[in-house]
């Protein structure tokens, strides 16, 4: 048993980057304010001092070049870890992501692969200014050639980040900033990985399967505990990777409950909940006992913060949604 430290999620990001920078000289961290400043959320604190400005690089303010240069570096076999300061500022780099990062392997028929990990804080709930709170993970899940990872605990964060950086294919690594400092967990000092593509069962139950990820995991578990007092027993699956989805775990959870809800803060239409619902239709239709509930953000631009609590699924809203699924009678 190796030594552990009690870390927050953002400290686990920093610890994961530190470990990979130490273990592999090809790892380079690059982005705006990641160097001397240590990152606007302190996710890269101290890395510049320890590894120097060639490996922890303050770039000019240009998302397209940050992503595009990482593509070029990765094509040459390096393992760049570019950061976009907020996922809401990803879009100038979006062309590079979808036109190149996602398909360099396919377009070169396997000659080039891109072992790069694009990190960005995402999601709402921190009273942030405009464009700082969106959840657009579905954009990336929709793009073939990318893997999309979203941790919800400090332990998983370090392990999934290591797995992403070491992966031969490009990964979008979205960090739920609402829970960057929400709680601590023992995190091993030694390097380890958590496999990409595997969901984690956070709570076992036989009545309703609830699928979620990122910052929504905690209010979902809170809702599940409240419902348990009323005799509704939820199984809560933290997906951890939204592309590729852990279809087996999703279907298993549904087969022994027959009822399901999906919780995400992203808008409802064409979100991950729609994909999960379709998987259940394809693979477990005859187990279904009730309509699958989608408990999500609304199909509107993310509001300025005075209304964000009405936009984001709260524990009570999640509880009511799950209750619908649990109590439905044909």
């Amino acid at each position, binding site marked *: 048993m190796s030594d552990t430290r009690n870390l927050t999620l953002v400290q686990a990001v920093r610890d994961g980057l530190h470990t990979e920078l130490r273990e592999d000289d090809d790892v380079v961290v690059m982005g*705006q*304010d990641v*160097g*001397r*400043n*240590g990152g*606007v959320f302190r996710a890269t604190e101290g890395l510049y001092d320890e590894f120097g400005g060639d490996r922890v690089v*303050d*770039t*000019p*303010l*240009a*998302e*397209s*070049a940050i992503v595009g240069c990482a593509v070029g570096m990765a094509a040459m076999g390096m393992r760049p870890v570019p950061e976009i300061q907020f996922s*809401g*500022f990803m*879009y*100038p780099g979006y062309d590079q992501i979808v036109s190149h990062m996602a398909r360099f392997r396919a377009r070169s028929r396997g000659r080039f692969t891109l072992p790069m990990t694009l990190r960005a804080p995402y999601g709402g709930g921190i*009273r*942030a*200014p*405009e*464009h*700082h709170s969106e959840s657009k993970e579905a954009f990336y899940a929709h793009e073939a050639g990318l893997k999309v990872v979203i941790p919800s605990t400090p332990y998983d964060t370090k392990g999934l980040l290591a797995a992403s950086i070491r992966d031969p294919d490009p990964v979008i690594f979205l960090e739920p900033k609402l829970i960057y400092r929400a709680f601590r967990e023992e995190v091993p000092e030694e390097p380890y990985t958590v496999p990409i593509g595997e969901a984690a069962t956070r709570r076992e139950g036989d009545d309703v399967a609830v699928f979620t990820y990122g910052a929504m995991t905690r209010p979902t578990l809170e809702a599940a505990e409240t419902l348990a007092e009323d005799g509704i027993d939820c199984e809560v699956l933290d997906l951890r990777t939204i592309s590729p989805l852990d279809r087996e775990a999703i279907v298993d959870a549904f087969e022994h409950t027959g009822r399901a809800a999906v919780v995400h803060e992203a808008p*409802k*239409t064409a979100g991950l909940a729609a994909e999960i619902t379709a998987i259940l239709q394809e693979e477990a239709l005859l187990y279904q006992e009730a309509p699958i509930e989608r408990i999500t953000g*609304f*199909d*509107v*631009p993310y*509001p*300025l*913060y*005075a*209304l*964000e*609590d*009405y*936009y984001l699924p*709260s*524990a*009570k*809203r999640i509880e*009511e949604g799950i209750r619908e699924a649990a109590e439905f009678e044909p």
Partner: protein
Amino acid sequence: MSVFDRAYDDPVRVLDEDGTVVGDVPDLDEAELVGIYRDMRLARHFDERAVSLQRQGRMGTYPPLSGQEGAQVGSATALGETDWIVPSYREHGAAFVRGLPPEKTLLYWMGHGDGARAPDDVNVFPIAVPIASQVPHAVGGAWASKLRGDGDVFVCYFGDGATSEGDFHEACNFAGVFDTPTVFFCNNNQWAISVPRERQTRSATLAQKAEAYGFAGVQVDGMDPLAVYQVTEAAVEKARDPPDGRLRPTLIEAIQYRFGAHTTADDPTVYRDDDEVETWRRKDPIPRLERYLRDEGILDDDRIETIESEVERRVADAIEAAESAPRPEPRALFEHAYDGLPPELETQYAAVETLREKRGDAAFLGE
């Protein structure tokens, strides 16, 4: 000789740090000069109060502008009545000059969507938060003005960091190609959060980037409001009515400094020295103009005191108005996404109201 016929690294200056005249004083009457002084005091006082509100938990993250009043007020004062400004998130000092009520800016940073809604008679585009994303809009707006023969000029504000973005370069290129009446006003405040100006580009100046697009570029002391006025006025006039052989667009690099943090979420002591801040504080645009106006006999203690109380009252009134605004109703979430609520949004809104009826607002607010 045109103000644009100079070396890129030779900034236009009118007043030195002590308020002594070192260039051509623009043709402004007393009321206009006092107006520039008053508007800078308004922006400064607003800024100090806004930072304080954020610190007290009465407002969200806020981007301070102290140090940049000379560039904002000097430039916005040089515009014609029907011209437009296209701002980033730090230009509320310029927006106030154009008639934006200060309570709108407070509401915006307090998280109210209505704060982003300028009155119809205020020619200000919505604040653009993503860096440089507004620059093409200023070209498009100006292009529309040209196509329709409106004669309006569009002044776009952005920072030094924005000049690294593709949007900036694409917009400048279009402005040159289509010869649009656009003034690109770069508030070079030396720092893009923690990244210094020298790290953004190897160009010796930002002004010289205009050359690649075929139009004029000029540096100005951005903490000298009269120099900023002079350069902007010339750029606006050229945009509206270009002399033979000159293109309408201009890139102005206004050299200045933000005294405070990038936003209230930022700690600049991590990346810059106190000595540097002190050096730039000596260039503060407000005492500089005040000294000049006192020397000219335009301002005295009494008039300054009157301006101070007027400014304090305006800001206090704005804070009261903003803080007394009720929390927006949840329906506001769904309004304005489209022209009217489509059926699916009516359904989603109805679900909000159903839950409110059943469990109250606490179901959303966690109260």
